[in-house]
């Protein structure tokens, strides 16, 4: 049978963004793949070299348009390493809550986009409905639906509003029941099982060697999580366990495991938020004014030459990392070099290799199960 190259993308429902997957097929079987990225490269790293440290946060929000809060937090921890800022504990709790709310919204966006790939359009409408609850909560914190500019070096911009805690608890409790609804819809759907089980096997060690991280590795049966391995924030004080799956094959995790691990992760995030809001220092129904020392401490604005900052952060798709060198323009007011490590940038070429041997019809299932986001990939 003659082999040929098929170009999928940049405009293809499978891509979940702008990139191109070129596949070489023999009949229906994939024999070679090639990923092309860079369609929405915006040069964020270069732009940041002429912005001062507080001005960089909005750019980091826009790295990933479904997970802005975690990316901004990731940058903030690197900047705090560089500028040696202390963070009040209440601010750490608020950051934890905001990041986990964002994780719920992001996983719902993933599930909502993954459903139509597999043939379940109902899922899209359900997930968008529930994601709205968390976007409303995040809007109460940051003032906008997608790009919040909420964390600050040394704390957070504003305290949680009065009544936020009660609204959040009600929504999370509702959502915990909704997760069961999703499972009833999906785990008993023949289409869902047939298209996901036994497809896209990846082993834990191969993934780590290739630089894949986060839920994708936990799906393969290891509970490695940056939140306990390279700790930040107050994750050790709240009640949660890393979500981890038991893969059914020696070949590792399949698409179904990766779906299950994200469902479990949503449960754990809900649990974490409910616990954190009760333990928050200063009380859940108090509102400290902006700039109060309970939520924000003063941080230096300049970093000397030779100083570096690094953060390793569990983003919704894996470990996002920032590496900042101080001593840029304006006597250290800007970073000299800011480097961003995106988990999906490393994962997409790995997934392209994973597809070899499967059929063309499996491509949306395999690609979608890794949760690609092109905004952070191309930076």
């Amino acid at each position, binding site marked *: 049978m003659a082999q040929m190259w098929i170009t999928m993308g940049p405009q293809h429902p499978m891509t979940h963004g702008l990139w191109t997957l070129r596949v070489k097929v023999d009949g229906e079987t994939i024999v070679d793949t090639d990923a092309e990225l860079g369609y929405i490269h915006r040069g964020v790293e270069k732009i940041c070299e002429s912005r001062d440290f507080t001005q960089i946060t909005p750019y980091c929000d826009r790295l990933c348009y479904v997970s802005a809060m975690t990316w901004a937090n990731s940058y903030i921890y690197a900047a705090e390493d560089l500028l040696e800022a202390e963070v009040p504990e209440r601010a750490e709790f608020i950051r934890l809550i905001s990041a986990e709310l964002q994780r719920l919204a992001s996983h719902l966006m993933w599930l909502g986009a993954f459903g139509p790939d597999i043939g379940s359009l109902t899922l899209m409408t359900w997930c968008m409905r529930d994601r709205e609850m968390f976007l409303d909560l995040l809007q109460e914190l940051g003032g906008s639906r997608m790009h919040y500019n909420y964390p600050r070096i040394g704390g957070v911009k504003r305290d949680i509003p009065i009544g936020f805690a009660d609204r959040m608890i009600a929504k999370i409790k509702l959502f915990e029941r909704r997760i069961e609804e999703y499972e009833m819809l999906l785990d008993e759907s023949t289409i869902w099982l047939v298209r996901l089980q036994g497809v896209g096997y990846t082993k834990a060690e191969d993934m780590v*060697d290739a630089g*894949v991280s986060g839920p994708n590795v936990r799906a393969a049966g290891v509970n490695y999580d940056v939140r306990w391995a390279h700790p930040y924030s107050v994750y050790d004080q709240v*009640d949660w366990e890393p979500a*981890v799956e038991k*893969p059914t094959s*020696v070949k590792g995790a399949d698409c179904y495991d990766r779906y299950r691990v994200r469902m479990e992760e949503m449960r754990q995030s809900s649990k974490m938020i409910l616990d954190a809001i009760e333990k928050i220092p200063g009380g859940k129904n108090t509102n400290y004014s902006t700039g109060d020392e309970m939520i924000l401490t003063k941080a230096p604005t300049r970093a000397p030459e030779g100083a570096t900052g690094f953060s*390793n952060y569990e983003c919704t798709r894996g470990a996002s*990392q920032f590496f900042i060198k101080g001593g840029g323009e304006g006597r250290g007011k800007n970073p000299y070099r800011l480097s961003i490590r995106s988990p999906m940038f490393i994962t997409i070429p790995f997934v392209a290799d994973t597809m070899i041997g499967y059929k063309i019809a499996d491509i949306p299932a395999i690609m979608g199960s890794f949760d690609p986001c092109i905004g952070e990939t191309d*930076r």
Partner: protein
Amino acid sequence: MGMRVTLEQSSSAAESCVAVLKERFSGSGIESTVEHHSNAFKMPFVRIHATPQHWLAVAKFMKYDLSVNYCSMVTGTHFPDGPAERGWEVAYHMMRMPVSNVKPHTNTTHVAENLSGSDIPLEFEVLIALEQGDEPTVPSIQKIWVGADWNEKETWDLVGINFEGHENMHRVLNPHDSPEQFHPLQKQHKLRYHGYNEMYDDPQGFGRKPADEGRNK
């Protein structure tokens, strides 16, 4: 309940790694130290200053003796005004993760406080200074960690560091038909419109000139 790797665990792991590295690479100009972050829990990490000629040996030692299994990030930096021996710097961030394949229907649930030896997650930072010049070159570690492959592609594409021995090097973020020798994160390329006054005086931008006008790009 949540858990985390403690400072003592991490410090002892970092110190034993540094001791092993010092013993193996004594007298070759490779310095390794235990450093601490200044955010969150002030976690320690291992910082290694390596040289391009010893880098492959150090990398193999890290992978096979220190079980560093994760190459997460490669950063190139251009120092056009730096000293002659440090015109460029390549920084590698590596992680050690307690991850191994599991048998079917089982999983590994580590308890952070009980980890010991080479199971303790640890961060490594390798800094390699390169001389001033137009051809900064380090050996590629693509064969040692698969994850270094696309990181090195990106670093070459954006910063212009050459990775000797890297197979299938090509542009990843810039357009594939970008001019040769064009690497936007080198410091001779200026952002065009970043003067604030200019921005406010002429918000439409009709009167602006690129900051690098007349420069041969």
